[in-house]
């Protein structure tokens, strides 16, 4: 049993971290269903590293001893006087003082000799020790690996086993020899110091004395601190500096760059965008409160016995509220700002914008009530709202699409900025998939499942991802104050995203009874997704080039960065999950849940937050307290990692238990600690949303504090009015 479990454990380790999903790509490439490529190669590699370290140690010792012998020889030949001159030339200020003031009647010997510690040697030896030690640690970690390998590898194991004590011996020897070298060196230095002391006891001649005094003066020089600023008091004739703070209290958080209010934004547009974002924030809070409660139910299934709150009914409430309520409204709010701005024109119709907002809110509200009352569409994920409810959402999309198209049609720029490509495309795709999925006259039998796979994945990839990418193409360059790195890469990503993403829906039903060829197409498409993902990531990362320092000064850029990282890792994890080999262990487990949170939360939500923190201060002129923005960021990020990493790890092992034919209940019991971690991570995420809601509140309201200057002028005006 033990023998069988260990390689699987290794497999588990390999696979768990979604961040290293490349390893599974590699495994796929070798054409093996599992990950058996590691053992023999790993051992050989290990052996090679060990021998390399030993060789390096031996060479290093040889070099060191050679050096010592040379030094000994050199020292004997050296002209002592010349050497002393060198020392005197290198005295520091204090030493010069001591030397010049030294009373040479022999009563006092207060010359403090420079301390000569051989730091270089120390550092080198420490480094060597460390590196060898790490080799040792590695050896211990890999040691149990031996058990899992049989046959000819036995020889390699034996060699490794032999090498471990030998290398330990070499490490020991190196330490000993280095100590010897150090002792020898110190002995020589002390002897030289004796000679130098004797030399220094005789007074210096006048020339040397004068030179030394001059040198001391030079060493003692300190600048006057106004060399650059001059003696004039500062002026700001162009009004570049504002909000000067003279308080010198220690800041609790690092002060980041403040947002600049944009002039000339139509207040009607401001209001519309703010309402979208405000509603989105509400649905986020609502949806994740439900999600949090669901996470708790995994740990405490008897938390309540109310039909409306039972797990099966609340789960779609959570997913749909965060999808259609939070993420969709958030994205659309940001898009309503972006589309007219990059078209350099006004929004075509504010009325349609408001209608869309009301319709979407109504859809989510009605959908939620329906689901809790037990009225749903029949169980397909993200398709749980019945079509009359989803119709409202569809109409909102139509209105928005028309609105945006009309805005773009009257643009004053020649080209259509890439953001608008993505945003309008997302609206078109969102409509197409909704119509295909919801038209109530078809989808019998497996037709339903084929469309379900298509719909659920296009919803994620062609609606959320597409529009979010469009937003990033505007907000990221805006925040970095640099143009996007490559327009062409953006276009490449656009067309390849459409080409490959459309194909991959059915990878949610690998090994099911839908046609095998369709599953294969989906898997191939999933691999193709590497192209748009890598193109997009490269584009974003390269836009950061030369502006990385801005991250530390900004409270929005960290959100972008996290979004980009998860865009890369989360999307490629999706590719890795699509293979048949990985489906064996990951399908049906919570791995999928972890993946969807990495992507919908790590990518979409982080990008939308980044956009929101960018845009609201520009509309209202008010910013959120930076400490609560920071709290939002860190709680969300750490919470997400607590949520996903244990869940991926546990699910991998769970899948392996299923493969191994363990009783189902055993796998449920096994999952309990990972579900607890999920609840903990979820709680942190939920707390971060409280901070987010507070930040929104602070950005929208004046906060009740009277601005002294404004109030004063108001009073002045009142006075002048009353006098007239």
């Amino acid at each position, binding site marked *: 049993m033990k023998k069988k479990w260990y390689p699987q454990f290794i497999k588990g380790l390999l696979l768990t971290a979604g961040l290293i999903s490349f390893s599974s790509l590699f495994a796929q490439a070798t054409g093996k269903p599992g990950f058996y490529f590691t053992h023999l190669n790993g051992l050989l590699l290990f052996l090679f590293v060990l021998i390399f370290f030993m060789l390096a140690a031996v060479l290093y010792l040889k070099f060191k001893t050679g050096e010592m012998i040379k030094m000994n020889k050199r020292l004997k030949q050296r002209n002592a006087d010349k050497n002393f001159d060198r020392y005197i030339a290198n005295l520091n200020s204090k030493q010069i003082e001591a030397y010049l003031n030294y009373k040479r009647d022999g009563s006092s010997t207060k010359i403090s000799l420079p301390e000569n510690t051989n730091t270089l040697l120390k550092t080198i030896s420490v480094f060597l020790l460390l590196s060898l030690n790490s080799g040792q640690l590695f050896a211990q970690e890999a040691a149990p690996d031996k058990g899992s390998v049989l046959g000819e590898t036995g020889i390699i194991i034996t060699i490794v086993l032999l090498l471990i004590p030998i290398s330990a011996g070499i490490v020991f020897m190196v330490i000993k020899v280095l100590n010897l070298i150090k002792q020898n060196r110190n002995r020589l230095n002390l002897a030289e110091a004796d000679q130098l002391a004797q030399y220094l006891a005789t007074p210096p001649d006048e020339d040397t004395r004068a030179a030394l005094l001059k040198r001391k003066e030079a060493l003692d020089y300190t600048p006057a601190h106004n060399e650059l600023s001059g003696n004039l008091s500062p002026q700001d004739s162009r009004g570049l500096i504002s909000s000067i703070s003279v308080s010198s209290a220690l800041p609790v958080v690092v002060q980041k760059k403040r947002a600049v209010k944009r002039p000339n934004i139509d207040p009607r547009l401001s209001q519309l965008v703010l309402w979208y974002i405000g509603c989105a924030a509400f649905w986020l809070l609502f949806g994740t409160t439900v999600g949090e409660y669901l996470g708790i139910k995994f740990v405490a*299934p008897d938390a309540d016995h109310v039909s409306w709150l039972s797990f099966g009914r609340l789960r*779609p409430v959570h997913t749909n509220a965060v999808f259609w309520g939070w993420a969709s409204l958030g994205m659309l709010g940001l898009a309503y700002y972006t589309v007219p701005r990059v078209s350099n024109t006004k929004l075509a119709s504010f009325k349609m914008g408001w209608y869309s907002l009301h319709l979407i809110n109504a859809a989510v509200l009605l959908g939620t009530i329906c689901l809790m009352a037990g009225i749903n569409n029949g169980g397909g994920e993200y398709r749980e709202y019945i079509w009359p409810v989803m119709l409202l959402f569809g109409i909102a999309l139509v209105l928005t699409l028309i609105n945006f198209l009309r805005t773009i049609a009257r643009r004053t720029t020649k080209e259509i900025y890439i953001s608008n490509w993505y945003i309008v495309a997302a609206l078109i795709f969102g409509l197409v998939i909704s119509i295909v999925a919801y038209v109530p006259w078809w989808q019998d*039998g497996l037709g339903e499942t084929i469309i379900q796979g298509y719909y659920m994945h296009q919803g994620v990839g062609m609606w959320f991802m597409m529009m979010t990418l469009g937003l990033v193409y505007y907000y990221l360059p805006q925040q970095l104050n640099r143009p996007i790195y490559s327009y062409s890469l953006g276009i490449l990503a656009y067309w390849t995203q459409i080409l490959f993403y459309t194909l991959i829906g059915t990878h949610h039903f690998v090994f099911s009874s839908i046609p095998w060829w369709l599953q294969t197409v989906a898997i191939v498409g999933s691999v193709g997704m590497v192209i748009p993902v890598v193109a997009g990531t490269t584009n974003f990362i390269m836009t950061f080039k030369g502006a990385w320092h801005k991250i530390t000064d900004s409270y929005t850029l960290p959100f972008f960065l996290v979004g980009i990282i998860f865009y890369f890792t989360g999307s490629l994890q999706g590719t890795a999950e699509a293979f048949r080999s990985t489906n064996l262990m990951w399908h*049906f487990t919570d791995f999928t849940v972890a993946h969807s949170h990495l992507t919908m939360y790590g990518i979409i939500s982080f990008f939308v937050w980044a956009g929101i923190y960018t845009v609201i201060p520009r509309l209202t002129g008010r910013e959120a307290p930076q400490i609560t923005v920071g709290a939002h960021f860190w709680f969300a990020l750490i919470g997400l990692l607590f949520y996903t990493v244990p869940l991926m790890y546990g699910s991998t092992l769970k899948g392996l238990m299923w493969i191994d*034919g363990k009783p189902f209940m055993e796998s449920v019991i096994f999952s309990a600690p990972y579900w607890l971690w999920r609840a903990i991570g979820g709680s942190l995420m939920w707390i971060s949303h409280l901070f987010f809601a507070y930040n929104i509140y602070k950005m929208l309201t004046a906060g009740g504090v009277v601005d002294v200057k404004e109030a004063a002028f108001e009073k002045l005006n009142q006075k002048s009015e009353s006098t007239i």
Partner: protein
Amino acid sequence: MEFFDNHKKLFGATFLLFLGLTTLVAILPAIHNQRNNAPLPNAEVLSDDAVKGKAVFIANGCVACHTQQVRNVDMDKTWGSRPSIAADYAGIHRTDIWRNTATLMGTERTGPDLTNIGSRQPSIDWNLVHLYNPRIVVKESIMPAYPWMFTIKEEPAKADVVVNVPEEFLKGKTGKVVATRQALQLVAYLQSLKQTPLPDGRPAPEFLYKRAEKKIAAADGAAQGLDGAALYATNCQSCHQANGEGLKGAFPSLKDSKIVLDDNPEIMVNIIMNGYNGREKEGFPPMPAVGTDNKLSAEEIAAIMNHEKTSWGNSAKQVTPEQIKQIVDAIKVKAN
């Protein structure tokens, strides 16, 4: 480029490309699939109660945790005797104009697959107790409880289906727990979930990714041993419990059971293969024919029996697979 600067051309091309791909990978395959598959000729049509039960199943979102698909991979053998095929779902149509087709294939297996639950767990009593609160019968279960599908009556009528709920789960309420029609319909649906055998002895699709046979080659050369405890957990434990003591008044104890301790295995094998209803007077519901329903082999039955005969303080003479095979064959001959 002119093409990219013209919003009609750009978005028109985008739309057409997407629509074309959609047609190819979604619409056409879906239409093809729904046209060219028919239900198996021997497939049973859902009863009225089962249809209503399915609606309850859908309304409560059970599909969030329970799949209904046996994949064609070896690890799914636990859930059915053959991989699911398109024909299994071909008889499912739109629920009504408001609601979509519910194949209920699912994407999460937080709970067991239900494709064949009607065969795997045919006991109505077990299902009702389990619905009232799953933790009565499966201590570590995290499935929601559905007490609102039951009422409590002081004096149940004769037609009422009384569910034997232990006192600790009643939370101080007194009276008898009676299943509502909703609960009975839901159980009727669950009982209807059985894999239809393929007609005319047609071979079922193969299970892929075969698990390598466990080789526990003992030093004394004994044949491969099956894990009796694991088999017991999969097939028997949900009623007879991990401690073998069953549930008072609902499922009989195997500990110190006369039948289990009997040196002659015949009666015990017979019960496993054919079920048992000899203790209904004591309030115990009939036991389903677990061995036949779950297609247990003689080796597996022997392993389970030996586990039962030697656990929880039981110590009876163990049986051999050969012995069991003889009895099973005899039972089959009799049945024919």
